[in-house]
C-alpha cells in the first residue's frame, strides 16, 4: 500500500513533469537534426511523416560547407569571442578589484555608474557606436566587434567578480603586506589565484554572450568573410524570401555544437556564475 503510494508520487511528482521539461527543452534540437538529414524531396513531401527519416542524407551539410563561408564564420566567432572575453576579463578585474577590496574616493559613485550601465538600451548606443567605428576606420573588421563587445561584458563581469573578490579574507592580504609584499604582488600572487572559479564563471559567461551577440555584428560586419555565425546564418542562408530549411537547420545545429561542447565541460562554473547573484546577493 505504502509502496504503491510512493511509486505514484514518484511518477506524477518527478518522472512525468521531468519528462515534459526535457521534451520541451530538446524537441527543437531534434527537429533541427531531423530536418538537416532529410533530402529536399522528403522534406517538402506532405505525405512523409514529419518525425521519421526515410532516406538520411548529408547533402545539406556538404552544401553548407562547400557553398557558403560557414567554417570561416565559425572561426571568426571563436576568435572574436575568445579575444573579447580575454579583454573583458582583464578590464573587469581592474575595475572589480579596487571596488571590492579597497577604499578610495569616488568608489560608491563608480559602483553605481557601473551598475546603471545595465539599463542603457543597446539600441540607443548603436548609431553613435557605428559613427565611432567609422571614424576609427574599423568597419568590416573583426576589431570592430572585439572592441565593442567588452562594453556589454565588462560591467557584468566586474559585478560578478566583485562577489568573488569580497570572499577572500582581508587578513590574507594584510599579512602579505606586513611580510613586505607590494600590493601588486599580494593581488597577483595571493588574492587572484584564490578566485580562479570566479574567473572561469565570468569567462564562460562572457564567451557565451559574445557568441550570441547580434546587433553590433549585424551593423559592423556586412562582408561575408568577416561575419560571425549568427549574422552569417541569418544574412546568407536566408536568401530573400526563400528559406533553405535543410541547410539552415544544418547551420543552426553545427553553429550550436561548439558552444554546447565548451559549456558541457564548464557547466559547473556556468551554473555558479548564473546563480552567483541570486544566491549571494
Amino acid at each position, binding site marked *: 500500500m505504502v509502496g504503491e503510494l510512493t511509486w505514484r508520487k514518484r511518477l506524477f511528482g518527478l518522472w512525468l513533469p521531468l519528462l515534459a521539461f526535457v521534451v*520541451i527543452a530538446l524537441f527543437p534540437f531534434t527537429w533541427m537534426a531531423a530536418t538537416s538529414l532529410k533530402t529536399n524531396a522528403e522534406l517538402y513531401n506532405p505525405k512523409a511523416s514529419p518525425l521519421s527519416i526515410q532516406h538520411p542524407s548529408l547533402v545539406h551539410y556538404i552544401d553548407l560547407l562547400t557553398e557558403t563561408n560557414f567554417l570561416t564564420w565559425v572561426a571568426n566567432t571563436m576568435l572574436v569571442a575568445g579575444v573579447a572575453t580575454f579583454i573583458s576579463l582583464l578590464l573587469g578585474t581592474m575595475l572589480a578589484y579596487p571596488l571590492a577590496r579597497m577604499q578610495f574616493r569616488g*568608489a560608491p559613485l563608480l559602483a553605481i555608474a557601473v551598475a546603471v550601465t545595465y539599463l542603457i538600451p543597446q539600441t*540607443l*548606443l548603436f548609431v553613435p557606436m557605428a559613427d565611432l567605428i567609422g571614424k576609427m576606420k574599423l568597419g568590416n573588421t573583426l576589431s570592430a566587434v572585439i572592441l565593442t563587445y*567588452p562594453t556589454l561584458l565588462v560591467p557584468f563581469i566586474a559585478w560578478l567578480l566583485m562577489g568573488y573578490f569580497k570572499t577572500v579574507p582581508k587578513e590574507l592580504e594584510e599579512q602579505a603586506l606586513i611580510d613586505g609584499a607590494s600590493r601588486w604582488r599580494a593581488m597577483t600572487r595571493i588574492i587572484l589565484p584564490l578566485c580562479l572559479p570566479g574567473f572561469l564563471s565570468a569567462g564562460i559567461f562572457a564567451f557565451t554572450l559574445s557568441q550570441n551577440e547580434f546587433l553590433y555584428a549585424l551593423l559592423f560586419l556586412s562582408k561575408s568573410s568577416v561575419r560571425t555565425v*549568427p549574422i552569417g546564418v541569418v544574412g546568407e542562408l536566408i536568401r530573400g524570401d526563400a528559406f533553405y530549411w535543410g541547410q539552415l537547420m544544418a547551420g543552426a545545429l553545427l553553429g550550436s555544437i561548439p558552444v554546447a561542447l565548451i559549456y558541457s565541460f564548464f557547466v559547473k562554473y556556468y551554473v555558479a556564475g*548564473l546563480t552567483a547573484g541570486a544566491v549571494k*546577493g
Partner: protein
Amino acid sequence: MSKILEASRAGALAAPARRPFGLAAFIERESIFSWLMLTPPVLFLLLFLGYPFFYGVYLSFFHKEVARDATFVGFGNFVKLYNDPIFWQSVRNTIIFTGVATILKASGGLAMALVMNQDFRMKAVTRAMLLLPFIVPTVLSTVAWQWILDPGMGLFNRLLVVSGLATTGPSWLGTPTMAMISIIMVNTWRGLPFFGISILAGLQTIPVELHESATIDGAGTWGRFRYVTLPSMLPVIFIVTTFSIVITFFDFQLVYVLTGGGPANSTHLMATYAYSLSMGAGQMGLGSAVALSMVPVLGLLLVLLTLYVRKD
C-alpha cells in the same frame, strides 16, 4: 620557539619602514593604487559606453538622417512619437511581451526547480540538457522555431494535421495575436532554464531543519511549500526576475528574426522599432528618441515589480 616567533613578528613589523620611499611608496597608497588600476577600464568605458550614450541622448533632440547634418528640433521627435500609433503599439507590445513572458518563466522555472530538487539518477546530465535552450545562440534556435512554426510544413502544423486535430493549422506568425503569442512562447522556451536552474540553486540552500520542524508542526506538502519554501525563495526569485525583466525588455534578435516586427508592425518591440526607424527609414534622431524612451518604461516595470514584492 616563542623567541623565533617574536623575532619574525618584529621583523614583519619593521618591514614597512624598510620599504623604499618615493614612487614605490606612493603607488602603495590605497587610493593611488586603486586609481591606477581603475584608469584603463574607466577610460575604455567612457570612450565606448559614455560617449555613445551621451551622443545618443543628444541625437534624440535632433532631426538626423543618414549622411545629412543634424538640425536641432528640441522635443520635436518626442512629440512626433506621441502622435505615432506604431510607437504606442510598440510600447504596449514591449510591456505585454516582458510581463507575460516573465510571469510564465518565473512560474514555470519555479516548477522546474521543485521537480529537479528531488533525488534521482542522472541529475547532472538532466540539468545540463535543461539548460541547453539558454546557452545556444539565440538567433540559431530562433531560426529553428521559425521552421517549427512554418504554417505549411512546420512541425506544429504537421503534427496537428497528422494527429487529425485540425485540417490546417493556425498561421503562427501571420496574424497579430498569434504572432505575439508565438514570440512570447519562444522567449519563454529560451529563458525558462535560467529561472529553473537559479531557483534550484537557491532551494538547495534552505536548511533541512526548517522543513523538518514545519512537518513536526503539522504542515503538509502544500503548507511546507507555502510557509517555508516560498518565503525563503522570495529574495532569489526577486533578483532573477529583475535580471530577466531587463534582458527580456531589451530583446531584439528574437523579434528581428522571427517576425521582423510584422505582420503590419503588430509585433514591434521598442528595440526593433528603434532599429527599424534608424536603419530602415534612416531617421536616426527619431530612432534614438524611441530608444531613450525605453529607459523610463523599463524603470516603471522595475518599480512595479518592487512594489509587488513589498506588498507580499
